[in-house]
C-alpha cells in the first residue's frame, strides 16, 4: 500500500522543484547578464552616477579652480552672477552647477545636457557623463554662467 501522505509529499515536491527550475533557468540568465553589464559599465568608470570619458589628472581639467564650500549660501555668495533653476532641463550650457558632495558643496561645469546625460567637467573625476537622474539628486539648483573658453 502506498501511503497517501507520501504521495501528497511527492506531488508537493514535484511542484516545488518544477517551479524552482522554471525560475532557476531565468535567474541564471539574469545574474550572468547583470555581471556582464556591470563589468562593461565599470570599464567606463561607472560608479552608479556617472561614466568617465576622460580621466584627466585632478585639477587639470579646468583652467580655473571652481572651489568647494561648506554651505550653499557660501557657494552662492562666491558667485554674484549665480541664478537658481528648477532642474537640469533649465540649465544653459556651459554653466557651473553647484552640487552636493557629502556634507559640503562643490562645482562641476556642465557642457551639454540631453534627455539622459549631462556631459560635464568634474575637477575630481575629469570629463564625465552624469546620468541626469543621478545628477538631479545632487544638483542644488544653483548655476553660474561659465565662459565657453574656460573649459579645457
Amino acid at each position, binding site marked *: 500500500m502506498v501511503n497517501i501522505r507520501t504521495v501528497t509529499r511527492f506531488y*508537493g515536491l514535484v511542484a516545488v522543484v518544477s*517551479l524552482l527550475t*522554471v525560475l532557476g*533557468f*531565468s535567474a541564471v540568465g*539574469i545574474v550572468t547578464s547583470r555581471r556582464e553589464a556591470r563589468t*562593461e559599465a565599470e570599464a*567606463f568608470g561607472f560608479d552608479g552616477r556617472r561614466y568617465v570619458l576622460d580621466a584627466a589628472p585632478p585639477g587639470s581639467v579646468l583652467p580655473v579652480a571652481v572651489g568647494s564650500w561648506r554651505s550653499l549660501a557660501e557657494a552662492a555668495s562666491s558667485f554674484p552672477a549665480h541664478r537658481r533653476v528648477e532642474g537640469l532641463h533649465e540649465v544653459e550650457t556651459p554653466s557651473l552647477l553647484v552640487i552636493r558632495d557629502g556634507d559640503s558643496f562643490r562645482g562641476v561645469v556642465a557642457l551639454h545636457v540631453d534627455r539622459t546625460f549631462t556631459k560635464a567637467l568634474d575637477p575630481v573625476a575629469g570629463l564625465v557623463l552624469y546620468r541626469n537622474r543621478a545628477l538631479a539628486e545632487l544638483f542644488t539648483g544653483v548655476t553660474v554662467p561659465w565662459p565657453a573658453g574656460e573649459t579645457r
Partner: protein
Amino acid sequence: MKRRLALASVAALSFTASLRPWGSGYLAVVAFAAAVAAVRGERRPARAAALMAVAWLGLAVPALEGTFLSVWWSLPALVALNSVAWAVAGAAHAFAANRGGGSTLWLLPLLVVAAEFVASRRWLWGDAAFSLLAYTQADTPLRYLASLTGSSGPALGVALAGGALVALVTGPRWTAGALLVSIATLSLAAYVVPAGTDAGSVRVAVVQSAQGQVARLLMPFDEGLMARVVAPYVALTAEAAAAGAELVVWGETVLPEGSAAVEGPWVNALRAAPAVVAGRVERAVDGLYNSVFAWRGDGLELVSRKQALVPVVEAVYAAGEPSEPFSVQGARLAALVCLDSLHGELSRESVRRGADLLVYLTDDTFAGRTATPLVHLRTAILRAAETGRAVVFANESGPSAIVSPTGKVLALSRAREAGVVITDVPLMRGSTPYVAFGDWLGTLALSAVLAVLALTARRPPCDVS
C-alpha cells in the same frame, strides 16, 4: 489539489523548456497535456484559474525575463498582468465544466485560443502578445497553421495535440482520434492553400556588432569612442558587400540621433554597401521617433517609424503610423521595429499594402544572456509563416536571422558576437489566408466559447463541495 498543482508546475517546466535555446517546440504539446490534466475535473473557478496561471508561467518567464534587466519591476508586473488571460480561461473552463459544458479536451484549447486572441488585441492589451502559445511552435511544422489564421492556428494545433495526448492515455480513445484528425485537417489546409507566388530574390546581409550598451550610449559624447563603435560596421558591411550582398541591414537605433543628414565616420560605413537599411532615433519637427532609414548612396531616406512602443521605457517617443512599402534593390520591403514583431496585424497590414519582404530591426542588448532575444526571434518567424513573406531579423546584439516565407530559418547568427548573416532571400507576392481574412480562427474560438458559456450559465451548477 497538490496533484493538480504538480501537473500545472510540470506544464510550466515543459513550456519553459520549449522556449529555451536547447529546447523544442514539441515539449509544448507535453506541457499543454499536463495543463489539461491539471484542470480536468476541477470545478472551482478560482482554483482552475490559479492552475492555468501557474502553467502559463512557463511561457511568460522566458519571454519576459529580459525586461528585469531594464526595469526590474516590469517582470513581476507583466507576469501578473498578463497571466489574467490564461487564468480567465481556466476559470471559464471550471464554470462551464461544472454545468456540463462539454469535454475539457475540446473546451480548454478553445478557451486558451480565445483568451490569447483577446489578450493580444493591440487596442486592449498589446504586450500580452509576447508570451503566446503559438511562439513555441516556431521550430515545428505546426507553425504552418499560422498562414491560415495567424497565431491562433499554431496555438490551437498545440492545444489540440496536448488534449489528444491526454485522451490517448486516459481515454476516451475516440476523442484522441477526433482531435488528431482535426489537427491533420488544419495542417492539410495549410499545405494545400497557395501561399503566394515567387517574385525573384535579393541577396541580403544582416550586420550585428554586438558591442554592448555602454559604448553606444556614450558614443555621441566622445569622437574617439564613436570611431571605435563605427569601425566594426565599416568592416562587416564591407565584408557583406564583398560576399555579394545587395542590401545590408543594421539593427535598431544604430545610427546616431538626428533628422536626415548623417555625418562623420558613419558615412564610410554606409558607403561600404550598395544599400543599407538602419535604425535611428529620428528628431522630427513633431516629436521623437524610433525610425528606420535607408541609404542608397546619396543620403538617408525615411522608411518607417516604430508603431508599437515599449510602455514606460519608450514614453519619450511618438508612435509611428503604418507606411507604404519602400522600394530598394528590387524589393518592396516593410521595415518594422522591435515590438512591432509581436503584432501580426502590423505585418499583415504591410503585406496588404504590397510588401514582398519584411524587415525587423531590433536591439535586444538590454536583455543580456536571457532567453528573451530568442523568443523575440520566434515572434518574427511566426510573422513570416503568417504572411508568406521572408523575414530579415536584424538584432544588434544577436541572434539575427533570415527566415524563409514558410518560417524556416535560412541563416542565423550567434547571440552576443559580432558577425554577418547573408543569404539569397526569396521575394513573394500574393496573400495567405491570414493576410486576406485575418485571425478568423481566434474570432471563431471566441464566439464558440461565449456561446458555450452563455448556454451553460442557464444550467444549475453541480455540487462543488
